């Protein structure tokens, strides 16, 4: 890839500022140590026109600032490559998007809440002494409460902003989310505490209001971190996938630009070995395309001028010039996009555990508080005491533990999966993953390696054909060259797109390619064979097949041991699908499915009550991925599939599926335990508050104690418990 980049003009990846300087960000792989960082910065800074460099060792991103307009991104990439660190430029639009404003706001709010909680507590602890009959003059207690109010009120109002805003937005849409009771709880607590202190009462909860926000913000911040990390990693994957499209300029020059900048009507150049970046019609050139990512077929398709080609196809043999087409003109791809959209909608309708709990919790607690107030007043407590008790109910039952119960578990679980090479896109994805009872595999690229391998052939025959094979980029020829090992390449090479290669081996003319290219009559022509022969000599046939991954059989056994049923859905023809299914130990398989049939099969399974996990990598799987209950895609999958999938796993390691299900089930168990604990706690705390047994000290202990228990239970995920 890097060699191809070097021929290109990458200036579109540099963002210029008003003074004429430019800035570019690159993802650098392989730099892990302090020494690497020093080497990278020193070498890049030494390049002409480079004003400054900054390497972020934590994220692996290098920011380069150019002094003038002449800064050359290609030289930076070449320099890094020479040092042994492959680098990919980021699309400037993505760099701008990466700025994490929400995270900064939450972190600052968390800091302010921590300050407020600690310092309000400092003044509240002496006041608590008075609650248990120790010597404390009412005047001193009141002073302490006022000091506590001075600290806690501004902090609570500032740190509570994220909750207040979300509650307000939710109320505007006439719905109540978890932030509504939080907002009411915090504001009511502050108001009641002020009124109590003004009336020289003993029960003020200033510390509780801000401590509550502090604990909730921890949960909120963890949840945000989880999503931000997943987004960042997904962005890196995409940057590695589709770095540039090469646009043919009006002056005949070629210029590498981010794929997002390509417009309808542009001419795009695709050299052999690259993927087609956008949909288009071939204007010049002919070639073989590997459509495995799009249709799932392993056999290459021959295309020529006028043919419609799809983004994601791999160009195998010839240089192509495409005219870019609008997406909507292509009915098949647009239909897949519509199916995906519908899938995403049905997914957003999925109600998360925490929201289910909130739907139960909000009306119960509010009714309870209202009944306490009304009942207390009616039974002769007086409005002040009744309101105080109602506020106490809201405080002790406030959803601290509930707010932490799920995010704490999910961040620990996704951290474990992240270390195992599985990227979790969201907490909801983990929850859906835990419910799965049926697994559907795609064949090409998931169960198999997605590239052909030579079936057993005599070594001397392979060695004879190898010099020609080494001269071609066709995957079958490459597989042949790989089987032969290192050696000489043939001379006088002529490659005919869609047919084969011809050249001189030790002075003898030889051909390698399709049966027709060698004049062999097409008896049972298979797309996964190559023919080889010297002029006027016997023809030899090489057969290839897409090898099943080593981890496939064990992964399938693992999934079955977890009580899941397994199935293969493939767009390929029946023969290879049956063979792969048998090798992987899968009983049920279906072949020859179009992308729409795949999605329809998933829908039918869904309708019969199954919760389906779809694992696929091609564009033909994207609709099925989006419509399945949960979905996984390998890191090598096309963009659309990675976007549609809930989880993305590194490499081809299929054992990731069973691991992800085990961990998500453990996470679900932990979360339910946490809910059970919260329910138990509320069942004790709420009656205590109703009967006036709760004072500010008890409320503070109960609140932080329950949050601590919930967090510790989540951390158990990291111990042996999560491995079950």
């Amino acid at each position, binding site marked *: 890839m890097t060699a191809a980049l070097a021929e290109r003009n990458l200036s579109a990846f540099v963002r210029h500022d008003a003074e004429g300087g430019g800035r570019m960000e690159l993802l650098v792989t392989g730099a892990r*140590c*302090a020494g690497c*960082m*020093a080497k990278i*910065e*020193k070498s890049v800074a030494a390049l002409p026109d480079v004003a400054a460099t*900054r*390497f*972020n*060792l*934590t*994220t692996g991103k290098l*920011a380069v600032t150019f002094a003038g307009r002449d800064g050359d991104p290609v030289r930076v990439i070449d320099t890094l490559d020479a040092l042994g660190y492959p680098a990919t430029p980021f699309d400037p639009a993505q760099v701008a998007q990466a700025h994490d404003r929400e995270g*900064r706001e939450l*972190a*600052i709010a968390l*800091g*302010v809440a921590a*300050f407020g909680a*600690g*310092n309000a507590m*400092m*003044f509240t602890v002496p006041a608590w002494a008075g609650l248990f009959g120790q010597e404390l003059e009412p005047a*001193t207690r009141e*002073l302490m409460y006022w*000091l506590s109010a001075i*600290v806690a009120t501004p902090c609570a109002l500032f740190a509570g902003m994220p909750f207040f805003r979300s509650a307000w937005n939710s109320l505007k849409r006439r719905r109540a989310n978890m932030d509504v009771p939080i907002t009411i709880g915090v504001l009511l607590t502050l108001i009641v505490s002020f009124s109590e202190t003004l009336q020289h009462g003993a029960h003020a909860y200033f510390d509780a209001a801000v401590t509550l926000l502090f604990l909730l913000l921890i949960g909120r911040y963890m949840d945000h971190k989880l999503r931000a990390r997943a987004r960042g990693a997904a962005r890196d994957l995409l940057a590695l996938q589709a770095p540039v499209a090469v646009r043919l300029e009006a002056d005949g020059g070629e210029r590498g630009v981010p794929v997002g900048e390509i417009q309808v009507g542009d001419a795009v150049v695709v050299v052999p070995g690259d993927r087609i970046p956008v949909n288009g019609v071939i204007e010049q050139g002919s070639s073989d395309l590997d459509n495995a990512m799009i249709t799932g077929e392993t056999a290459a398709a021959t295309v020529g001028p006028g043919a419609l080609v799809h983004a994601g196809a791999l160009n195998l043999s010839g240089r192509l010039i495409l005219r870019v087409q609008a997406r909507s003109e292509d009915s098949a791809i647009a239909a897949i996009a519509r199916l995906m959209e519908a899938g995403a909608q049905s997914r957003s309708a999925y109600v998360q555990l925490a929201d289910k709990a909130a739907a139960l919790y909000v009306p119960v607690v509010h009714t309870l508080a209202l009944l306490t107030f009304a009942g207390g007043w009616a039974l002769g407590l007086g409005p002040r005491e009744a309101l105080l008790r109602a506020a106490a109910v809201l405080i002790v039952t406030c959803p601290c533990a509930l707010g932490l119960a799920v995010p704490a578990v999910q961040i620990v679980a996704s951290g474990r999966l992240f270390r195992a090479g599985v990227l979790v896109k969201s907490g909801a994805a983990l929850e859906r993953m835990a419910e799965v009872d049926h697994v559907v595999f795609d064949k090409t690229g998931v169960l198999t390696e997605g590239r052909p391998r030579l079936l057993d052939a005599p070594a001397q025959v392979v060695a004879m054909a190898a010099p020609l094979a080494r001269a071609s980029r066709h995957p079958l020829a490459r597989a042949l060259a790989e089987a032969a090992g290192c050696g000489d390449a043939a001379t006088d090479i002529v490659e005919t797109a869609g047919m084969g290669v011809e050249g001189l081996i030790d002075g003898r003319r030889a051909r390698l390619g399709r049966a027709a290219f060698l004049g062999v009559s097409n008896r049972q022509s298979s797309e996964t064979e190559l023919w080889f022969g010297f002029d006027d000599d016997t023809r030899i046939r090489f057969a290839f097949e897409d090898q099943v991954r080593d981890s496939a059989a064990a992964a399938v056994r693992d999934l079955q041991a977890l009580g899941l049923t397994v199935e293969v859905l493939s767009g390929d023809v029946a023969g290879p699908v049956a063979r792969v299914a048998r090798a992987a130990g899968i009983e049920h398989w279906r072949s020859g499915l179009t992308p729409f049939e795949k999605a329809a099969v998933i829908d039918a399974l869904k309708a019969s009550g199954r919760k389906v996990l779809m694992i696929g990598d091609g564009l033909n799987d994207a609709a099925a991925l989006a419509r399945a209950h949960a979905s996984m895609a390998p890191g090598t999958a096309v963009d659309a599939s990675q976007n549609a999938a809930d989880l993305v796993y590194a490499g081809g390691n299929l054992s990731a599926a069973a691991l992800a299900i085990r961990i998500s089930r453990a996470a679900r168990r932990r979360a339910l335990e946490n809910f059970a604990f919260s329910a138990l706690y509320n069942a004790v705390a709420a009656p205590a508050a109703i009967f006036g047994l709760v004072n500010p000290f008890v409320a503070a202990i109960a609140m932080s104690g329950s949050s601590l228990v919930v967090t510790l239970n989540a951390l158990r995920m990291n111990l042996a418990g999560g491995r079950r």
Partner: protein
Amino acid sequence: MNIILLLAPFSLLLALMGLVGFWWTFRANQYEDPKGDAARILYDHLEDGPEA
């Protein structure tokens, strides 16, 4: 008891310094690259502060 009137504002002032410190480290991008910043001090030719 009067000592409280002195100690309370004083302790608040100390804690506020902590909060302002946190604010400053945050604004100064000191949490962007903890691994790199720890290593920068070891090399003479690298700037050893966080990115501006």
